[in-house]
Each structure stands twice: as structure tokens, then as C-alpha cells.
């Protein structure tokens, strides 16, 4: 699965994107799996209220959203476009 990070989440994780074999089947499961891996993930996901998620480029509100069959999951802070 392709995982993407933007803005300060990208800076904390240290890479813009990565391919990972993931066991988790939901967004929150994926976050917990990443946080177990390394300290940089734990730092990036320390405040989930500031984290927004897109599954296959669609914004999802619920962290329990399934990621089974998803090609890519993106994590980023609240958007500041316009």
C-alpha cells in the first residue's frame, strides 16, 4: 500500500510517501501499526485531532473507515488553500 504524508506530517515522518505491507484493515489500525514501528511516526500522529485522512484520494471523516483494497492512504494537517 502507498502511504503519503503532506505538510508537517511529511516533515515529521521524513518522507513524502512510501510503499508498505500493512496488516491493518482500517485507517485507525494503520495509524496504530505505523506508531509501533518508529518514534517518528509516533511524533507525527501524537495529536489525531490535527490529522486529516484521504483514502484513494477521497477525504474520510471516520478513522474506522476500511482501507481494504485501498491503493493509497494520505495523511495531512487541516488544509489551508485559497
Amino acid at each position, binding site marked *: 500500500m502507498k502511504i*503519503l504524508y*503532506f*505538510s*508537517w506530517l*511529511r516533515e515529521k515522518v521524513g518522507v513524502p510517501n512510501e510503499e508498505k505491507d500493512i496488516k491493518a484493515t482500517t485507517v485507525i489500525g494503520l495509524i496504530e501499526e505505523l506508531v509501533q514501528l518508529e518514534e517518528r511516526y509516533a511524533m507525527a500522529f501524537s495529536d489525531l485531532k490535527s490529522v486529516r485522512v*484521504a483514502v484513494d*484520494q477521497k*477525504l474520510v471523516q471516520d478513522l474506522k473507515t476500511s482501507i481494504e483494497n485501498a491503493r493509497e492512504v*494520505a495523511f*495531512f*494537517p*487541516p*488544509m*489551508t*488553500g*485559497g
Partner: protein
Amino acid sequence: MSSYGINHCEIFVSVQGHDFNLQFEIESIKNERKNFGGLVSFLGQVRNDRDTEKELLFLELEHYPDMTEREIISICQEAKDRWELGAIRVIHRVGKLVPGDNIVLALVAASHRNEAFKASEFIMDFLKSRVPIWKKEHFEDNSSWVKSKQSDEELLSRW
């Protein structure tokens, strides 16, 4: 860059690094449909007064390629469904921009001014907090990501 003609409302969206020209964009709409009656445009530029203490050197706009453009198109389609519009053109720049540079342009043409105003405000409100773009401000000795504003989020509830 994407262009769709739906229900006679032409939607054009571009997320790009290079600058744009408002007059050129208006002429493009005029060429497509001579008589739009009213055209409302919002032009956003980089200010240097966000932090009065420090001078902004440049702004860096990061985005989520592919998704950004698709999200903007979906906002425009929602606007087209809510109001009777003749044409919509939205251009959002990404990359490094200095104070005074254009950031964003939202053009809406309609027969009635009220609909053009409403649609244009709607598009800008959603661009602010529903499109995957992030701004980082670079000053002389530090840089920081622009925080999203609660007030921008609250504006969405009016639609």
C-alpha cells in the same frame, strides 16, 4: 488542467506553478459565451502582513497532485448544481510565491449577479479548507506552516 462542459456551464480548473492573467481568463469566458451578464471574480494574492513583526520572504504551497484538481472540480460541480451559472474558471497556484504574487483566481459567470456572487463565495470558502493545499511561510530566520482558521471552518456551515 481540466475542462468540462456540463449543462452548458463550462468548468475549467487548473493547479499550476506559473502565473495567470485575469484579463485572459475573462476573454476565454467571453469567447465561449458572449453574453454572461455578470461576472464575479475573486483574486487572491500573497500578503506580507500576516505577521506584523517579521517580513515574509516567500510562501511555499504544497499540494496533493491529482487530488487537488479533482477536489476543486467537485466543488465547482456542486456550485453549478446549486446556482444557474454560465461558466466557472478556477486557477490555484502551487510552489514558491513572493508577496504580491497571485495565488488563486475564481471566476464565475452568470446571468444574474446574485448567483455569480453566491457561487464565487461558495467556491472560495471550500477552497480554503477542503482542498489538499498547505501553505508554509518563510521568514528571514524561520518558517512555519500556516494554521487553519476555525473561522474558515465555520464559514462552511452557511452553505
